[in-house]
């Protein structure tokens, strides 16, 4: 599966330090279409935040509002005690890496990188020094005189990055910059981008629809759904403690168990386990990897684990692991992730710990 690169220093939104960027109750509609509703978010210094969402969730619109290419209908954005949303894009200390890179075709690579510096009228020497520094940082020094048309997609992406970073912005926005790359290159770039961010130390706001990508790279993930934030948390947190059904299903695979709670006992079909919840209907997220095959015999089992049985309906090979679709006697279907083994047949015995059945909210229906 994926590897999450641990931050060297744990970052906390509650550290008491003033956030770099504060987004307050931002709303935006296109015509009659509300695209963003009441978004509030804070971005800390030096953090790698990913805005994750499906297409149409509003994530690109939010990014463009921060960059200045769209203006919000309501709310404000404050950066270092200054109203950012009142400034035109060319006066914000924010730079963007565009989805299709938007390199200037009539300028060479080094002219592209130095564009922002030339516009702010720095001295020729200063510009040359910073440009070569930026090119070295993205390992593109030999291509300084080339034209964008003559370099590959991955190389263009690095130049787009250098062009933005050379201006030393307070915040870097990245609009799905890796989506045009093939899978292997993409994985490589994810690692490079992350270490680059560490090296440079500025805040990155990264937009993507790929939840694996988000988990690999981010310090925090802001999950956006239909214009509202579902959950904002670190990758580990959002994976193991999803707040809503949507979050649980969007990030990784999960089983959603619908049941009732009565007298601190949750019942879902023929399964039941102890919970500390008020009475009423409840929804639980149980990750496939948290359902294990019973190894020992029926006796000697850990009494806290909930056991059940079922037949294998489908077996999907994923390399190191496989995903099994199990049908239980009462018709309940669950997915189970285990180590690969050929030809599973017949009745299987499965178990899980109640602690792994995370209660989640229903996701609100949104128009």
């Amino acid at each position: 599966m994926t590897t999450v690169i641990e931050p060297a220093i744990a970052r906390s939104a509650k550290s008491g330090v003033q956030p770099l960027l504060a987004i307050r109750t931002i709303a935006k509609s296109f015509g009659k279409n509300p695209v963003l509703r009441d978004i509030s978010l804070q971005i800390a210094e030096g953090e790698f935040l990913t805005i994750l969402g499906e297409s149409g969730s509003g994530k690109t619109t939010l990014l463009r509002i921060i960059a200045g290419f769209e203006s919000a209908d309501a709310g404000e954005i404050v950066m270092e005690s200054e109203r950012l949303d009142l400034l035109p894009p060319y006066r914000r200390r924010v730079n963007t890496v565009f989805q299709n890179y938007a390199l200037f075709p009539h300028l060479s690579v080094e002219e592209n990188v130095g564009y922002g510096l030339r516009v702010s009228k720095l001295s020729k020497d200063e510009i040359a020094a910073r440009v070569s520094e930026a090119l070295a940082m993205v390992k593109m020094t030999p291509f300084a005189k080339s034209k964008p048309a003559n370099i590959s997609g991955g190389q263009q992406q690095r130049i787009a990055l250098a062009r933005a970073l050379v201006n030393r912005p307070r915040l870097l926005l990245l609009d799905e910059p890796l989506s045009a790359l093939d899978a292997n290159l993409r994985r490589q770039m994810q690692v490079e981008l992350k270490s680059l961010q560490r090296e440079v130390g500025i805040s990155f706001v990264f937009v993507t629809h790929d939840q694996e990508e988000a988990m690999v790279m981010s310090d925090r993930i802001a999950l956006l759904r239909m214009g509202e934030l579902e959950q904002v948390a670190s990758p580990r947190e959002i994976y193991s403690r999803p707040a809503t059904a949507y979050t649980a299903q969007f990030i990784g695979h999960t089983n959603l168990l619908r049941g009732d709670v009565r007298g601190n006992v949750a019942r879902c079909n023929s399964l039941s386990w102890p919970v500390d919840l008020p009475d009423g209907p409840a929804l639980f997220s149980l990750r496939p990897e948290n359902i294990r095959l019973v190894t020992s015999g029926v006796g000697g089992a850990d009494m806290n684990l909930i056991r059940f049985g079922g037949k294998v309906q489908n077996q999907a090979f994923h390399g190191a692991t496989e995903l099994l679709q199990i049908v239980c006697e009462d018709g309940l279907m669950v997915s189970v992730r285990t180590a690969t083994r050929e030809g599973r047949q017949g009745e299987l015995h499965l178990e899980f710990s109640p602690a792994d059945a995370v209660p989640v909210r229903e996701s609100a229906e949104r128009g």
Partner: protein
Amino acid sequence: MFSRAYRTAITLPPLLWVALFLLVPYALLFCYSFWSVSPSQTIVHDWSLDNYRELFRVNVYLQTLFRSMWIAARVTIFSLLLGYPLAYYLSFYAGARKDLFYQLVIIPLWVSYLVRAYAWKTILGSDGVLNTLLQYVHLTKHPLEFLLYSPFAVVLTLTHIYTPFAILPIYASLEHIPRNLVEASHDLGASPLQTFWRVIFPLSIPGVLAGATFAFVLSLGDFLAPLLLGGPSGIMISNIVVSLFGAAYNWPLGAAISLCMLLLVLALLLLTEKLEKKWSFR
């Protein structure tokens, strides 16, 4: 995929037609330019450079040619000055009305040339609309004579006719500029004016070159506007050619001038092509 027979069938007829009706006539033009006309009005095939020498010897030909080029240059400059901002407006600001405005630009293009030239004639004359209007509102007491039968009238009319020719290629090249380049430029700190000069204008140069070429070449070879509106001081090189094929009856000399015009136009087109390659970034 296509058989030999198919390819021959689609290639041969047009090739033959073009050879007969374009290649041969141009070749004849070439030959005529080296011949001369006898006093009895017959064409003598004496193969000499006399006509060309005549061109350089007699002042009026070169003078008229330079005047024509000067008129064409002015038409080009005005067409670009009028046309570029309009094309820019259309591409970047027109929004929902872009379609309508585009139609408004191409309509004059296809309305009869004669109609448009005639319209200016009725407007600019001493009894014309403009003069009587000015007198009516007491801005002038007497008709302004220079308005008609002058190079001014020719430049004005040709600008009117060829500005749409300039607008279209400029508009096309502006449309081809990806909008995210404009956003990227703003993102990097360039104001809208800086963005225009550093990004938009350089990328629109091929369109500007094409528009300028059309305006220049087409007005250089124009003979109608000068005839209708130019008066004696507005004669252009094509008028001389026309008269040499008419009343002045000297086909060979006319052919020689035509050939020079042709070569001039071809040279210009070659130059434009080279420049466009230099400024095209695809």
